[in-house]
């Protein structure tokens, strides 16, 4: 069946189309100060039920996955039950050795990532926790593998995260040990959004591939020691001035399903020990830093 072959667009349709197009362009050109409250207003009103349903669906999926994981763990634990005393003793020794102080025992909020269908999912993330859960703007957002981004807008029960893949994102970084500093941003160009680059490394410092790079804590937003990535190689250098390195990210926003939003109370703390003991940490990130030539 051919629908409405007799109903091509009229002049009124064209006018309506042009008006919508102009309004879209106006929205695109809005300054940040107007754009953010407008988007927040839509999320708080029209989109509130939709976001709530999506949040519940994401929780449901996670619970289902958790049940499967718990069943597997239960079976494994049943088999390992006979070794519990030995494991406890070993665990205590390891904790003592690592001087683990449980830095993430408090000072964070858990949230699900509500992935969207648009192309820009991964540049910004919508989280299922907001002001009522204690999230404030500029809070760092991490996964067990490393830094994902920071909160840029907060609603009552949702928040928007600017991921490190966002073109405007920057974070002060350092090589483990705090000897070499730089600024990490997403790599623009051929592999935009998939890898990072470490800029502003002093020309006298040379970083071999595999060197772990973490947040430096400078600026007071991100705590020191959150994994960012590992050096893959040098991208460019300005003779006698600075070098830029390519980093493989420790955590990718598009793959995150569950995140931790750190509170301001941990902004001044050293996070490296916490990430060293977190499960799921990649081998490359936990590996000992190769020697750095100066």
């Amino acid at each position: 069946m051919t629908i409405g072959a007799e109903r091509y667009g009229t002049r009124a349709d064209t006018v309506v189309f042009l008006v919508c197009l102009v309004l879209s362009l106006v929205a695109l050109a809005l300054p940040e100060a107007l754009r953010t409250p407008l988007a927040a207003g839509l999320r708080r009103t029209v989109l509130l039920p939709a976001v709530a349903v999506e949040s519940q669906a994401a929780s449901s999926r996670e619970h289902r996955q958790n049940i499967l994981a718990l069943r597997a763990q239960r079976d494994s634990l049943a088999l390992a039950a006979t070794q519990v005393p030995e494991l406890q003793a070993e665990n205590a020794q390891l904790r003592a050795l690592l001087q683990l102080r449980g830095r993430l025992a408090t000072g964070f909020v858990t949230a699900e990532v509500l992935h969207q269908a648009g192309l820009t999912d991964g540049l910004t993330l919508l989280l299922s926790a907001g002001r009522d859960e204690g999230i404030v703007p500029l809070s760092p957002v991490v996964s067990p593998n490393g830094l994902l981004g920071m909160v840029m807008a907060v609603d009552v029960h949702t928040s928007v995260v600017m991921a490190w893949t966002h073109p405007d994102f920057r974070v002060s970084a350092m090589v483990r040990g705090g000897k070499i500093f730089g600024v990490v941003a997403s790599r623009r160009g051929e592999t935009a959004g998939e890898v990072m680059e470490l800029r502003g490394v002093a020309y006298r410092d040379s970083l071999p591939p595999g060197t772990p790079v973490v947040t430096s804590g400078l600026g007071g937003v991100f705590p020191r020691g959150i994994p960012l990535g590992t050096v893959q190689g040098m991208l460019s250098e300005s003779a006698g001035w600075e070098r830029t390195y390519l980093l493989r990210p420790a955590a990718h926003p598009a793959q995150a399903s569950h995140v931790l939003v750190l509170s301001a109370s941990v902004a001044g703390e050293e996070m490296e020990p916490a990430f060293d003991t977190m499960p799921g940490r990649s081998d490359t990130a936990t590996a000992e830093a190769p020697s750095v030539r100066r």
Partner: protein
Amino acid sequence: MKPAAPRLKLAAVVLVLVAAHFALRPRLFPSRFAPDFVLVALLFFAIRSRPGAGAVAGFLVGLLTDAVAPTTFGATAIALTIVGYAAGWLKAVVFADNLLVTAVFVFAASWVRDLLELVASNALRSGSLGTQLLLQSPASALSTAAAAVVALLLFRGWLRSAPAL
């Protein structure tokens, strides 16, 4: 049958698709290549409407989509306004209840939406643009087209009788 009944059926189908987008999609599908049920709903509406109504619907859906991913607020609105208008205009050559034509139409609309959004947002460049348009967007468009075919199979009777708005 009352004249309003077919319109109500179309509205019901659109509502079911929108509900599936928020309730079903996060449970069943991986995020990156998940079908975009809202785009399917928009196209089902636009293809049975006047081009102006399709443009308005596209603008509103795009604006709301931009609100939950405000990287480039307005880019999705531009893309969906054009897609909605074009879908309403192209209905003269589209066999709306033919499965294959619907699948191709939705696939093309999804890909064009991505292309327009990329151009409007200027978020990606050069090599990554090619990867997005040649690999990721087609995969996403394929799943959206499949969702459209399933929806058409489920609601074919209701959609066939839907008149122009």
